[in-house]
C-alpha cells in the first residue's frame, strides 16, 4: 500500500514524537551520522528525479548535495528519501529527514502552523496552465467553463478556485492523487487544461506523446516561491541551509564556476571573492562550518547558474528560461545577502 509509509509517519508523530525532535541540534546529528537525510519528490524532472541507477539529479537534489558539502565536505553523502506531497511535512516533523528540498512553496500557514522554517527561496515559480494548441486559447481569461485536471496535495486547487471566483468564470476540477494520472487524463482529453506550477507543467509536457502540440500559457495565477524547509527552532541548521543556498547564488554573482574556481582562488584580488572562498576572514566558522565550505560547494556542485542550466535550462528537455530566476542585477529576483 502506498499509504502505509504515510500511516507509519503519522503514528510515529503520535507515539515516537520525542526521538527525532528531542535532538534539536540537527548539525550535530548529521555530522555524527555522516549522512544527510534529504526529502525529495518522487520524481519531478529538473527538480528531483532518479535515473535507472537510482542516482538522483535536479535543482532540489543539488541543494541537498550543497548542504552535504557544506556540513560533511562530500556531496555524495546524501540519502534521498522520496516523499509524496502529503508525506513531506510529517517526514520533517518526525525527524525522518534533516532537510526537505522538494519543490515546496513557502506560505504563511506552513511557516506558522506546521513547525517549519523556510530559510530561503531556491526557485521562483507560479501556478500556470497548459493547453493543447488546437484549443486556440491564448490567455488565461479565455478558460471560462473549462475542465481542469490537477494533482491534489498542494495549494493548486485553492489557487484555481480563487482565480476563477474572482473572475466570475465557471470551471470544473478533476483532481488526481498522482501526477502520472493527471498527465494521462489530460492526454486522453478528460480535461481541457492541465494546471500546476509552471516548472511542473514543463516537466509534464516532456511526458506527452507530442510535446510540441501543447503550450504553457505565460500568465501565472499565484506566487510559488519554492525552497527548502527545516524544522522550526533549530536556528543554526536553518542558517546553514540559508547560507548554503546564498553561496550558490553568490558564486554566480561573483562570476565563480566549478571550472574557474581553483584559478580564482589563486589569482583573485577581489576581497569579496577571497572572503567567500575562505582565504580571508572566518565566515565559515561563524556558521559552525569549515573555512572552505563555500569553495567546496562551488567545486562540487557549481554556482546557481550552472545548477539551473544543468537541470532546467535550454540544454535540457525542459527548456525553461531564467526569467524571474535570474540574479537581481540581471532582471530577476534572486538576491543573495552579503557574505561578510
Amino acid at each position, binding site marked *: 500500500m502506498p499509504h502505509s509509509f504515510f500511516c507509519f509517519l503519522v503514528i510515529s508523530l503520535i507515539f515516537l514524537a520525542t526521538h527525532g525532535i528531542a535532538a534539536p541540534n540537527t548539525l550535530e546529528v548529521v555530522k555524527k551520522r555522516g549522512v544527510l537525510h534529504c526529502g525529495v519528490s518522487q520524481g519531478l524532472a529538473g527538480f528531483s528525479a532518479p535515473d535507472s541507477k537510482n542516482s538522483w539529479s535536479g535543482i532540489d537534489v543539488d541543494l541537498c548535495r550543497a548542504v552535504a558539502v557544506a556540513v560533511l565536505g562530500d556531496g555524495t553523502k546524501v540519502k534521498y528519501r522520496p516523499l509524496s506531497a502529503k508525506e513531506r*511535512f510529517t517526514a520533517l516533523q518526525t525527524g525522518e529527514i534533516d532537510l526537505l528540498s522538494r519543490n515546496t512553496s513557502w506560505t504563511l500557514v506552513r511557516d506558522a502552523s506546521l513547525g517549519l522554517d523556510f530559510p530561503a527561496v531556491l526557485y521562483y515559480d507560479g501556478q500556470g496552465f497548459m493547453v493543447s494548441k488546437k484549443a486556440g486559447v491564448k490567455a488565461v481569461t479565455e478558460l471560462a467553463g473549462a475542465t481542469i485536471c490537477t494533482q*491534489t496535495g498542494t495549494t493548486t486547487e485553492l489557487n484555481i478556485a480563487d482565480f476563477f471566483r474572482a473572475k466570475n468564470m465557471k470551471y470544473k476540477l*478533476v483532481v488526481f492523487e498522482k501526477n502520472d494520472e493527471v498527465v494521462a487524463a489530460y492526454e486522453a482529453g478528460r480535461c481541457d487544461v492541465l494546471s500546476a506550477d509552471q516548472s511542473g507543467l514543463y516537466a509534464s509536457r516532456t511526458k506527452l506523446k507530442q510535446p510540441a502540440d501543447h503550450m504553457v500559457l505565460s500568465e501565472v495565477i499565484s506566487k510559488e516561491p519554492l525552497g527548502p524547509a527545516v524544522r522550526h527552532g533549530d536556528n543554526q541548521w536553518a542558517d546553514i541551509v540559508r547560507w548554503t543556498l546564498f553561496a550558490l547564488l553568490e558564486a554566480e554573482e561573483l562570476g565563480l564556476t566549478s571550472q574557474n574556481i581553483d584559478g580564482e582562488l589563486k589569482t583573485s584580488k577581489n576581497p569579496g571573492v577571497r572572503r567567500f572562498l575562505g582565504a580571508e576572514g572566518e565566515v565559515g566558522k561563524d556558521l559552525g562550518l569549515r573555512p572552505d565550505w563555500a569553495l567546496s560547494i562551488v567545486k562540487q556542485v557549481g554556482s546557481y547558474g550552472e545548477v539551473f542550466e544543468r537541470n532546467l535550462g535550454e540544454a535540457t528537455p525542459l527548456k525553461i528560461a531564467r526569467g524571474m530566476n535570474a540574479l537581481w542585477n540581471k532582471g530577476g529576483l534572486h538576491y543573495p545577502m552579503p557574505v561578510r
Partner: protein
Amino acid sequence: MSQSQPHIRRPRKVSWVSIWLQVLLLAIILAGFYVGGQNALENLQRQSIASGFGFWDRTAGFGITQHLIPYGESSTYGDAFWVALLNTLLVAILGIIGGSVGGVLIGLAAFSQNLLVRLLGRVYIEVIRNIPLLLQLFFWYFGVLRSLPSPRESYSLGGVIYLNIRGLSIPTYSFRGGGWSVPQLEGFNFTGGLVILPELVALVLTLSLYSAAFIGEIIRGGILAVSRGQWEAALALGLTRFQTLRLVVIPQARSVILPPLTSQYLNTTKNTSLAAAIAYPDLVLIFAGTVLMQTGQAVEVMLLTMAVYLGLSLLIALSLWLLQKRWATHDLG
C-alpha cells in the same frame, strides 16, 4: 436421508481470573493510548504545530466536482468532509448492490445445466479475481475514457442526453422552478442538467465486477454446502429446480453465505478509497487529501478518516449480524 448435526463445543465457563486479566490488559492498552495522545499533544505544541479541530469551521475555498449536498467555494472544511463522506457512501452502496446482483448471477451460473454458461462463469471468476483491483480500475477508467468522444462530437440521444469524455449529461427536472434543465454545449463543455462523472461510472463498474467474482464464489460455496440429498428429496417431491433452489436450498445456504458475504461487503466499502487514483472526489481524495494538505493537520485528519472507515465497517457487520440472528430464530421456529 438425515445428516447428524455437527457437534459444536460450547465455550467453557469463563473464570473470574481470566476476566480480571483481560480488564487489566484493556486498562493497560487504554493507558498506552492516553499517554501516547498526551505525548503527541505536548510535542505538537512544543514544535508549534497546530492541533485540534479548529480548522473544521474555516472556509475550505476549493471546489468539488460532485456534491450530493449544496457545496461551494465558500463552504467550510466540515462541509467538505460531509460531501466527501456522502460520495464515498454513494460508491459503496452502488458497488455493493452491483456486486450482489452480479454475484448472484455468477454464483447461480455454476449450477446451470448449460455447459457454456458454467464455463463462462468459471472464466469470469478466475480472470477477475486474479487481476489486481487497481489495474482493473485503470483499465476501465482510461480504457473507457479513450473510447469516448470529445464534448463537441458527443453521442446524442434525441438532443437531450449526451455522452462524451466529460461524462453523461442528462436533463433534470426542478420541482421548485417547475421546469426542465436540458444540457447544452457552451464553450468547452455542456452546461445545465446533471452530469454523471466518468470517474463515478468507472469506480462503480470496477467495484461491482470485482466483488461479483468473489460473491459468486461465496454463493456457489454456500449452495454446495447444502447436502445433495436435499436436492434429490425436493425434486422427488415434484418441486421444480427453481422451487428447490428458492424454498429448500437457499434458506439453508444463506447462513453459510452470510459471514463471508459480510467481509466481502466490508472489502468493497474499503476499496472505495481507490477512488483517489482516478480523481473521484471521495473521503480519501478530498478529506485525507486536499483538506489534509491545506490544513497540514495530519494527525486529526487521518484519525477521523480511519474512524469513518472503522465506523462504516462496524455498521455493515452489525446489520448483517442482526440479519443472521433473525434468520437463525426463524430457522428454529
